[in-house]
């Protein structure tokens, strides 16, 4: 008894641990990484309907987006603090009227793609904005969680807490977020050494969504080329339209799945061929991988690590108990 006390583990406890181990061993994490997406919304962009608003100076979707977000960015401080040691300042405040690329003041633009398909020439207009991915690396690994995927599926950057470190842009396959220096919380901390502004991108008009309205670009489209609704419905509609025209869908698999589906009668490989990746003007690589998926396996191992530790402790204690008991029996035998 004395020995058991000093060891500090009773037979009862040992049996409990032994019984618990198989139960713990049966513990497993879901194999597939996916969130409950029943509340998510999505947008269908039908490229067979979009005509790029050639009759207008600015496409209607771009114009509506600019209008609704015109007061979003406060005027940057002057002069904008010079970051150290890399002296990169991105100031778009003097070029707010740029509409042919993504900027902090322009969250959507229409890209023109002149395609040659088997001798047939065709022009396709592709409205480009944030895809609002299903598992957006830009949001999940933001060091301050300033970027987050909301319950309605919108991926939104909180401009009050963003430091403008460009991490979200670096991990986005399309480098969508754009930085405006000289604004944001970094100005109040260490402006020369930490942060460099605020990242801006489409927020899917999250406030309008809360008010049960559609995103401004969707409402503004004269061609009804954009349709917004429940993700399930949009996915079904995209499939239906694509199969009717024997067409193609972009955004369903790309980067692990997104909340923006493009439907086209031209293969996206051909559309992508016409697009040269430039700052603020992303290309459209088909089947672009979600790089963060490479870490999911180890992420699951991390989630299982507490159980591994407890199991190892159980095994260690079992060994200890076993050898202690063996010595005890040996001692009793010798005494007899």
């Amino acid at each position: 008894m004395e020995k058991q006390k000093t060891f500090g583990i009773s037979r009862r406890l040992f049996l409990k641990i032994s019984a618990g181990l198989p139960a713990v061993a049966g513990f497993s994490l879901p194999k597939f990484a996916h969130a409950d997406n029943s509340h998510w919304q999505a947008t269908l962009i039908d490229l067979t309907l979009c005509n790029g608003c050639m009759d207008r100076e600015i496409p209607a979707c771009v114009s509506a987006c600019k209008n609704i977000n015109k007061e979003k960015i406060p005027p940057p401080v002057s002069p904008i603090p010079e970051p150290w040691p890399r002296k990169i300042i991105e100031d778009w405040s003097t070029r707010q009227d740029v509409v042919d690329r993504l900027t902090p003041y322009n969250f959507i633009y229409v890209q023109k793609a002149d395609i040659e398909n088997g001798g047939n020439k065709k022009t396709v207009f592709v409205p480009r904005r944030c895809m609002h991915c299903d598992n957006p690396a830009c949001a999940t690994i933001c060091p301050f969680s300033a970027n987050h995927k909301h319950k309605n599926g919108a991926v939104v950057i909180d401009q009050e807490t963003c430091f403008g470190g460009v991490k979200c842009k670096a991990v986005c396959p399309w480098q969508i977020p754009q930085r405006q220096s000289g604004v944001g919380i970094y100005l109040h901390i260490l402006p020369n050494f930490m942060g460099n502004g605020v990242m801006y991108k489409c927020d899917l008009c999250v406030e309008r969504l809360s008010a049960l309205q559609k995103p401004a670009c969707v409402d503004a489209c004269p061609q009804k080329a954009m349709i917004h609704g429940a993700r399930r419905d949009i996915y079904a509609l995209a499939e239906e339209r694509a199969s009717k025209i024997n067409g193609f869908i972009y955004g369903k698999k790309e980067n692990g799945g997104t909340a923006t589906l493009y439907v086209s009668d031209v293969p996206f490989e051909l559309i992508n061929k016409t697009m040269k990746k430039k700052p603020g003007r992303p290309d459209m690589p088909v089947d672009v991988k979600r790089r963060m998926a490479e870490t999911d396996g180890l992420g699951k191992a991390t989630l299982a690590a507490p159980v591994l530790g407890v199991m190892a402790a159980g095994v260690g204690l079992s060994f200890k108990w076993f050898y202690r008991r063996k010595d005890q029996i040996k001692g009793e035998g010798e005494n007899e």
Partner: protein
Amino acid sequence: MSEKILKEKGLVVRHGALELMEHWFIALSGLVLLLTGMFQMPMAGRYYITSVPGLTWSGDYIVSLYVHYAASVIFIAAFFFHLFFHGLQNEKALIPQRGDIKASVIVVKSFFGIGEEPPFHKYLPEQRLAYTGMALLIALLIISGLIKVYKNVYAPDMNYTVVLWATWVHNIGFILFILAFLGHMGAILLKPNRPMIRGIFTGRVRLDYAIHRHPLWIEDMEKMQKKETPELTEKTEQPVSVDAPLEEAVDESGAAVCGVSEAAESKVESEAAPVVEEPDTPVSDDNAENK
């Protein structure tokens, strides 16, 4: 419990192989976590860390996240192993005791030459407090980290309030962990603590050091050995003495460094009289090892 007095070698086993492994698994994986945690901030590119040979990967957030996860598997598993393996055996040597705060003040003062140290058990009172503080900090880092990992893998649209809490607990914990690491390094470099450095590498400390600084621990070990193996203890009944082979000569500050006050000595003598004899000569401290 692998603690043992190795009289012939003039050493005391302070930590067993398992405890050393636990410490180093947590310490090394913790350092990797600190480093890759820093690389999760957008700083490697800005500060040219990516130009440092061997650190070109530091600017790739996915790679550094991968390494961060790998280190966290070891870190978390080691933490839970430690908690359950020792907790279920009711090991309390590192759990703070009543009066530890007061005693810690006295000990810290003594490091700066104000007053003298009381006799210690295996661990110093501030070691127990620091251990508990570190354990709580690690627990917070693990809980917040696990929430973030779950979000990354399974629930990117997790409740935003929960995500923000987890993020800021993790970020503030990260800063405190750096401070705790620096404090840990600072403490071990203090002259009176230096003899313990070999303990965390080899598991053993000098017997003369242990007798003079940790007499209550030696006393406990003697009692335990006597209780567990009475026949063995009878054979080695003679008190553990450090008359014999002290490892090195003595420096002039030795007695002060060992810091057993008169009051403490009398306590040792009265409570642990059968076990400990005072050496004839003042005992060396860490200098002995360093020479």
